[in-house]
């Protein structure tokens, strides 16, 4: 069902988006400020349900691509994502009737809202990752047959480029990444243009409203002196992400980080409060796998989040630090992200892990050695 987003909703939305960022996705704080400024003029943004799209609606998702650490210094002009969308419209000869996130975790949950506020078009309540992933081909859109190409990318000078690699979405990622570097580390993109029927077939529905609900749930639980993580566990069964569970509580005792090919890789070790074996979480920008002792407990694409023990505030991989008291909270991904085709694109193997994916709710019961 359609609903409006106002300035008052943004705090909850970005908190929920940070949770879905599973440790990565970029800090949504700047996105929050951007959308809040745009809403001072626009007032509200309309969010529509995928079921409300007609088959011939044309949806152009918009996003930011590149280094969050550049974004905090070279702030956007404000016209870049709209320029990218317009460039794609010119290239395809079709006009966007709505925009949509490609990624519901982290800062990219906010870019389509910024576009929508400027253009007065609605945002579709759906995305193609259902969380955060590091690369553009890691989309359910791609998995279920929508091409990312043609992609339009724009900088703050109003300069744009079109990347067309037809059905090779990984190559699109590589080329767009190269352009991003030339643009100073951050570019703004429009890609995966598709009609209403394709959105309904390939997108993960209601992830924007999910982010809003998750963020609101954490805040309201705190206001009522309830355990925010327990409140999250109660909320998730009402959604496509049918289960959320604390798999470990403890204190961070070590964080290792290295940079490999532009990605931050590393491992966090968490010691429990009793005699139980330690929990380790491996990350590559996002959290990829959580193990307790030598038992694997959660594997990508299931969501691993690390939350402050008391406040339930999500902690990103960049801000993990020795001594933090945390809970490792696992969330099962929607079934459409667990199919063989989906796992080939963003399952464990896509991140160089050798284990086969097993849904965390089954790992929790049996354990895998």
């Amino acid at each position, binding site marked *: 069902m359609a609903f409006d987003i106002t300035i008052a909703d943004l705090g909850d939305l970005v908190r929920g988006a940070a949770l879905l960022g599973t440790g990565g996705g970029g800090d949504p704080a*700047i996105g929050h*400020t*951007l959308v809040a*400024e745009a809403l001072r003029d626009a007032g509200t943004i309309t969010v529509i349900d995928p079921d409300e799209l007609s088959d011939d609606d044309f949806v152009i998702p918009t996003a930011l691509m*590149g*280094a*969050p*650490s*550049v974004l*905090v*210094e*070279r*702030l*956007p*002009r*404000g016209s870049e994502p709209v320029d990218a969308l317009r460039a794609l419209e010119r290239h395809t000869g079709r006009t966007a009737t709505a925009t949509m996130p490609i990624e519901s975790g982290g800062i990219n949950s906010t870019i389509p809202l910024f576009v929508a506020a400027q253009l007065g078009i609605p945002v579709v309540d759906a995305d193609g990752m259902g969380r955060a992933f590091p690369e553009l081909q890691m989309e359910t859109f791609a998995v279920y047959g929508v091409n990312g190409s043609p992609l339009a990318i724009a900088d*703050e*000078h*109003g300069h744009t480029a079109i990347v067309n690699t037809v059905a090779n979405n990984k190559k699109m990622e590589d080329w767009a990444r190269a352009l*991003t*570097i030339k643009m*100073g*580390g951050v570019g703004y993109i429009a890609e995966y243009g598709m009609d209403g029927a394709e959105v309904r077939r390939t997108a993960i529905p209601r992830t924007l409203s999910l982010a809003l609900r998750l963020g609101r749930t954490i805040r309201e639980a705190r206001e009522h002196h309830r355990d925010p993580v327990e409140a999250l566990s109660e909320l998730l069964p009402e959604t496509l992400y049918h289960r959320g569970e604390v798999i470990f509580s403890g204190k961070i*005792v*070590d964080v290792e*980080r*290295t*940079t490999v090919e*532009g*990605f*931050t890789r590393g491992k966090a070790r968490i010691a429990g409060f009793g005699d139980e074996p330690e929990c380790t979480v491996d990350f590559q*920008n996002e959290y990829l796998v959580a193990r307790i002792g030598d038992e694997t407990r959660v594997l990508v694409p299931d969501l691993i989040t690390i939350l402050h023990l008391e406040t339930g505030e999500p902690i990103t991989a960049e*801000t993990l*630090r*020795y*001594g*933090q*008291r945390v809970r490792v909270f696992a969330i099962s991904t929607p079934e459409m992200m667990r199919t063989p085709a989906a796992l080939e694109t963003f399952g464990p193997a896509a991140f160089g892990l050798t284990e086969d994916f097993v849904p965390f709710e089954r790992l929790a019961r049996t354990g895998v050695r």
Partner: protein
Amino acid sequence: MRIGIDVGGTNTDAVLLDGHSVLAETKTATSGDVTSGIINAIDQLRRARPFETTSIKAVMIGTTHFINAIIEADRLCPTAAVRLGLPATASLPPLVGWPDRLIKATSGTGYLCHGGHEFDGRLISPMDRSELMRVIEDIHARGIRTVAISSVFSPVNAELEQEVASLVLEQIPGVHVSMSHEIGRMGLLERENATIINACLRELAEQVCTGLAATLREAGFTAPLYLSQNDGTLMDVDYAREYPVATFASGPTNSMRGAAFLSGLETCAVVDVGGTTSDVGILQSGFPREATAEVSVGGVRTNFRMPDVLSVGIGGGSRVRVRDDDVTVGPDSVGYRLREEAYVFGGNTLTATDLAVASGHTEVGDPSLVAQLDPSHVRAGLDRIAAEVAEIVDRMRTSPTPLPVALVGGGSILLPDELEGAAKVLRPDHFAVANAIGAAIAQIGGEVDRIFAVAPGKRDEVLDTAKQEAVDRAVAAGAEPASVEIVDVEEVPIAYLPGNATRIRVRAVGDLALRDL
């Protein structure tokens, strides 16, 4: 000899130091006007221990005056903010998100101009001289007397900010300029905000610094005057006129540095127990560890170099409640009314201090007034205090190795001689005036914080360049060259950028070059 003075919200503490020995210490009430409070503190010191003004080689002052001016939105002057970055950054112009009362108090006006750099040093766009001249004319016409200048990636390349600063100084007689690369670090909005805050304090700083210098001169002092900075180093009074913002967190920093000096520990946790809270910080190589997150000052997001401090609501005046056998302490406190309300002073409120006295651990007030307390409740209350403080200390650690703990502040009598997870617990002498001692012993520092492209095999070379730059900065600020040491090196690889882009931060610190007078 040196004099160290810490002007806090309630008390002004002062010490007279000769080398490493404390000759005299005093505590007086802080006065509304900074200057007379300081003269009063010096008079008290002289009464405690007579000295010749000419034998004082340096006077060091820590003050909360400037941060209070921002919090109260008072005594600020009309300010302009000029940012170079167009066409980028236009979506979030200067002063975005500032509280209205601060914008009003500074008549804040923001200007966006072309310029700025990319992370790799390329220009975003060339600077446009005629555009800048129009902006400067407008600033002049509005009668604005202080200008904050920021430019995208100025921590990587500061040339453009410097060029604009000289243009502004040339065109507007008597104007003050503040440049963002000298004030904050990466993160344009936060750095720019800190620069604007600095700019709007420049006239007040001028006034206070001139007043202090003149007062000390009239009192017969010929020694140089220094103000303490957030990171525990000093700036001379002329530098303080230009960077008032650097004094913002000198309070907690001075108390930690004083604790390091008094305890002889270089790396430890410091617990400063006051009347209402216990503040815990970490010393690394004798300096407070800095907070990594943004710090909000008066409702404005900034990225000042501030010490990382975690507080818990436990102090000498914390109220103690006994329900059945459950004993709770704080977080509410009788605060400065301790001497009227606590049992040991004949009052009717059970406080943490009463527990410490009842345990026989310390003697304050009249111990007979707490003789009737149930020893098991006393024990339970004190155990609880120790456990909560120990947990905060543990949270602040960054490695599994237990740290020694130094206890300072008047309320530290509440804590036992052993804490869970602490390597050892020290209670140095003069603990009540650790903050003034921290001011008196402060050194001079220099810092580099930039993104470097680290080519394969060149890591050591890049680090050496960064270290030399930090050392040069410390010497330029007045450090004795032979004494300068690198105290902190931090490397953070940056995701999604090629060429092993790495953010490197280096801090160097040396002894103040004291002249014989």
